[in-house]
């Protein structure tokens, strides 16, 4: 079966995208597989200025999941363009993940990436729970979300704009509709659930930042439910993620209506997992007799 998926103007060789913050700049994984084999790579969140991120400890293991409070450490867009992007093979499909603290800065970032041929699409992170400003507030308020999306769309040129939604909301459809109303070409969800882990002996949080974002299989039921809801609420392609660790999991997201998926924490369990998953998904789809993704997508009987 042909694994290709079309998300509006963005065509992916297959529905597997590595999730932002879990696959570095792709370079870290070149020893473990061929980046062009992936449907796409969402790069680590990038801001205008470099960010040092949060103090240590930044990660904690939880039952079937993990918490992170990296705080969007990144080299900044200039250094990224000068020192990272040139080394990423040209045949990889790259999605830049944008982070800023104001709509203006988001727009600025979009304008910079609009001119980068190697960048296939922009993902706007309005859902990071681990930074004090401009993170999840944008993703929890439909007006702020719309403001960021408009600012990005205005300057993104021809690049498709994906808006990444937070699960830490009462009704994810409200933000989804706001983002689409403001011009989002696609939505991706879910970012991490805000969570916490503590040490009863030291009486400290296991994260210096106190709270962090929960990812991994633990959150898959929440992610599936939200993707299911959002797919029904909007008319743009949806990229599903949250807890995917197998080909079955990928098909679950497509079954509830996702066009493509992102794979995050699974990359830590084994560095070639994303590459292997591409083959496993193809094999599973074949064994189920699926003729095309368009045929299977969203066919959940409810």
């Amino acid at each position, binding site marked *: 079966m042909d694994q290709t998926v079309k998300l509006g103007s963005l065509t992916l060789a297959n529905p597997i995208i590595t999730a932002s*913050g*879990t*696959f*570095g700049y792709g370079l*870290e*994984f070149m*020893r*473990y*597989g061929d980046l062009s084999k992936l449907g796409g790579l969402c790069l*680590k969140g990038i801001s205008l200025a470099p960010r*040092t*991120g949060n*103090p*240590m*400890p*930044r*990660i*904690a*293991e939880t*039952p*079937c*999941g*993990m918490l*992170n409070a*990296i705080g969007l*450490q990144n080299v900044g867009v200039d250094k990224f363009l000068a020192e990272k992007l040139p080394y990423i093979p040209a045949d990889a499909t790259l999605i830049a993940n944008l982070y800023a603290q104001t709509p203006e800065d988001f727009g600025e970032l979009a304008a910079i990436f609009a001119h980068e041929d190697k960048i296939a699409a922009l993902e706007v992170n309005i859902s990071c729970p681990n930074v004090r400003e401009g993170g999840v507030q944008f993703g929890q308020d439909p007006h702020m979300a719309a403001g960021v999306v408009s600012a990005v769309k205005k300057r993104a040129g021809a690049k498709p704009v994906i808006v990444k939604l937070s699960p830490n909301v009462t009704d994810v459809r409200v933000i989804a509709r706001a983002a689409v109303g403001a011009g989002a070409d696609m939505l991706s969800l879910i970012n991490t659930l805000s969570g916490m882990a503590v040490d009863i002996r030291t009486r400290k949080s296991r994260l210096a930042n106190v709270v962090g974002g929960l990812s*991994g*299989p633990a959150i898959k039921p929440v992610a599936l439910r939200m993707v299911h809801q959002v797919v029904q609420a909007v008319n743009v392609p949806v990229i599903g993620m949250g807890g995917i*660790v197998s080909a079955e999991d990928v098909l679950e997201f497509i079954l509830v209506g996702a066009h493509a998926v992102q794979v995050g*924490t699974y*990359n*830590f*369990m*084994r*560095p*070639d997992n994303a590459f292997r998953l591409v083959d496993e998904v193809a094999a599973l789809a074949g064994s189920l007799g699926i003729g095309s993704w368009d045929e299977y997508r969203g066919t959940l009987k409810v």
Partner: protein
Amino acid sequence: MIDSQTPCRDLEVLSCRPGSDPSLVNLILSAPGWTCRPGQFVMLRPAQWGAELIWPRPFSVCDVSDDGLRILFQTVGRGTRRLAELVPGQKVTVWGPLGRWFRIDESRPNLILAGGVGIAPFVMLARRERRDNLSMLFGHRLDLQHYPYDEIAASIPSEAMQQKTPADIAAFETVLSDRIRALAGKGQVLACGPEPMLKVVRKYCLEHGTDGQVSLENRMACGVGACLGCVAKTIQGDYVQSCVHGPVFDVRDIELGA
């Protein structure tokens, strides 16, 4: 010798045996087809682990040869306890060798400062190097026979100090200070052990102006530089991934929290 196609592979457990103390386990995996430098590490994840424990676990390469990959580990939590239950024939996913190693100064004395299971990377070093400019000071809590101390002492001058009481710890600290001072401007120390010991080593290296390298054991999720969870703070105030820029760092390059 590194297979560039993919350095991630499933090795077979050849043996997994607690030592004379059950909290220290010797794990031998089938030969990985690569070699490495002392201080480098691997990420291990039994192929049959479910998802309850998400992360692989990092371990120093204790030794590697055509006979297999040897890991010496201490059971401290859920992951290491489950690793200790491995039986021959089971598969473990291994990626590595990873990170930067201990750099030996060929022309000057190198003093190994090992604490507890931190002795692991020096087994390979002592076997490989067999040099006259190497010696070791080993601090340990359990009785000496539980550790591969004799293996190292057979090749290089070694001494050991047991720490059972706070007084023992203070005494060890004094000796550390003396030895580090004695090497000021003349040689270097290579340290691996619990974090409190590394802090003491770093403090005396800076105080006495002695060159030193320390191997950090930060929590790691990926081992390949991607998650930014394992960072060490440089003296410039930046955070760098200890899995790729370390785990072995020059004491002058990084900070070690209070």
